[in-house]
């Protein structure tokens, strides 16, 4: 253990707060729309691992990113996806889990031709 503690059994007194089991069947997934920093940070969602990836592009992302005028213009077939640091081509009909997403995955996406207002 790397914590310098006065009690040798420090870890046994601690609780890892964000384990997947604490999220009632969901996992936390983060999404970040690159070149659109009007959204101050990546967005966090508790999602069922079995949810189809296509539900993200059909519903979740258009809803929560809808306040930006660029969202209506997104062509989801052209989007560049990076899941946990790796370039990916998600299968929209398969689940988040089958597309390699796990608890606290980070999904960054670029929308070619749409760069916000000077990146905002």
């Amino acid at each position, binding site marked *: *253990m*790397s*914590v*310098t*503690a*006065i009690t040798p059994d*420090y*870890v046994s007194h*601690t*609780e*890892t*707060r*964000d*384990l997947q089991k*604490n*999220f*009632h069947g*969901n996992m*936390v997934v*983060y999404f*970040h729309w*690159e*070149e659109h*920093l*009007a*959204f*101050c*940070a*990546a*967005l*966090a*969602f*508790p999602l069922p691992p079995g949810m189809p990836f296509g539900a993200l592009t059909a519903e979740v992302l258009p*809803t*929560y990113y809808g*306040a930006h005028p660029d969202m209506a213009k997104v062509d989801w077939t052209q989007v560049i996806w990076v899941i*946990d640091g790796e370039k990916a081509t998600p299968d929209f009909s398969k689940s988040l889990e089958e597309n390699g997403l*796990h*608890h*606290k*995955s*980070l999904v*960054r996406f670029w929308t070619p031709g749409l760069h916000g*207002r*000077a*990146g*905002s």
Partner: protein
Amino acid sequence: MIDALKSLFGARPAPAEAVQGEKEAPKMTAKKLGLRQRYEHMTRGLDWETTYQKMDDVFPYDSFEGIKIKDWSAWEDPFRLTMDTYWKFQAEKERKLYAVIDSFAQNNGQTNLSDARYANVLKLFLTGVSPLEYQAHRGFAFAGRHLRGAGPRVASQMQSLDELRHLQTQVHTISHYNKFFDGIGEFPHMHDRVWYLSVPKSFFDDARSAGPFEYMIAIGFAFEYLLTNLLFVPFMSGAAYNGDMSTVTFGFSAQSDESRHMTLGIEVIKFLLEQHPDNLPIVQKWVDKWFWRGFRVLGLVAMMMDYMLPKKVMSWKEAWDIYFVEAGGSLFEDLARYGLKIPKYADVATEAAEHISHQNWAIFYQYTHAAAFHTWAPDKEHLDWLSAKYPNTFDKYYRPRWELWAEQEKEGKRFYNNALPQLCQTCQIPMGYTEPGDASTICFRETQFKGDTYHFCSDGCKDIFDGEPEKYVQAWLPVQQIFQGNCGGPTVPDVLAWYNMNVGADNMDYVGSPDEKIWKEWHPDADAARKAV
């Protein structure tokens, strides 16, 4: 010890200090002691080596951190303040402060502010900073109990009392505003629950759950010495510039305490470094960590200076250059003789001084529905001021953002972020900071620990987690807690109710708020005056 008491009581009734109405001088021969002797007697003279219990059992906390102390008596306290003098000084300051607070209230001082927007600075201070004074009170009480040297124990005890007094006087000073403005009355409840207040709260929780030496470096040195001017000066000069004379007076009342705290902070670090060469790497690690953590917390001050003060004092960047780059630079030149280096990532922080105020205010602007103070978009004059103060960055990155939002607001589509943001596992701030050297790309860092992924806003925050992962996996991250169902319910109104937020009054934009309404009642011509400027 008996000798010490004898000399003390023998020395007590010097004529100038005699209590009024005390008619008979004690029969003992009075021998007046010098300040230094008094201090010696009242600190070390009252200390003793325990014999019924082992000293290590009485002071179990001052060895486990690995700090080696050869000689506690080498501690130098340049203030040499004794408890009786301490009470006398503080009582005098309290009398003056409360006289000013009373007259401020009687004269309706709140109507003479520069603008009611200023009250939001006080809300941020009271919910975010004042509870830290209380945490500091408890932290120094702990250090005062657990360090075995009498010098640092007495100094910590006094600082502990100072911090409690600061909380009380801040609450009393700001309570007057609570009669007129929203977002003030629930400050302790909010400090424990509201999402962005977990940032300052977890900062102090981290320090207070460390050992006493780390606490002294974290709060005594890094916060009270290295970074204090960046907290205190902006708030107090901001108050002075904006007509808040009661807060200015609080500032004066705390000033002599603060200089004592700074002295304690610098003495701690010199003492530890002089005592044993093995202390250097431990102290360096703490300095690196607490510099970065303090810098992140001070981002709230940055946005206060650049966005919230109706009359600006100086920009955050200017303050950073004066108080950190210049003053901090010469401090670390001085400490170089002990082998201590300038904190890791100081250069990253200096580069970020061009960005953090804009990034932070943008967070609150888009989450205004969940903030316990009012927000507003900068008007044209304000945007021009920002462009002038940040010539390298503002027009390139941030002005277009505000212009986009202004257009949307004009069209009746005020921009809100209706999802919850990703938070940094260490500083707990929404991950809105950008890559060093590239303000167009968010900085993402992560670590795998025991099969789980942890995300960070910066290398600084990642290093801190990697240094003690078992500590930071326990973080109470507000977003995660909401998802787990621990914050009143699944919807935003549920969570705001759990925060005790008075929706429609405490939160949302200043324009249209009850704060604005009352201000306009006091100043029917305010709009005209604003436009004329």
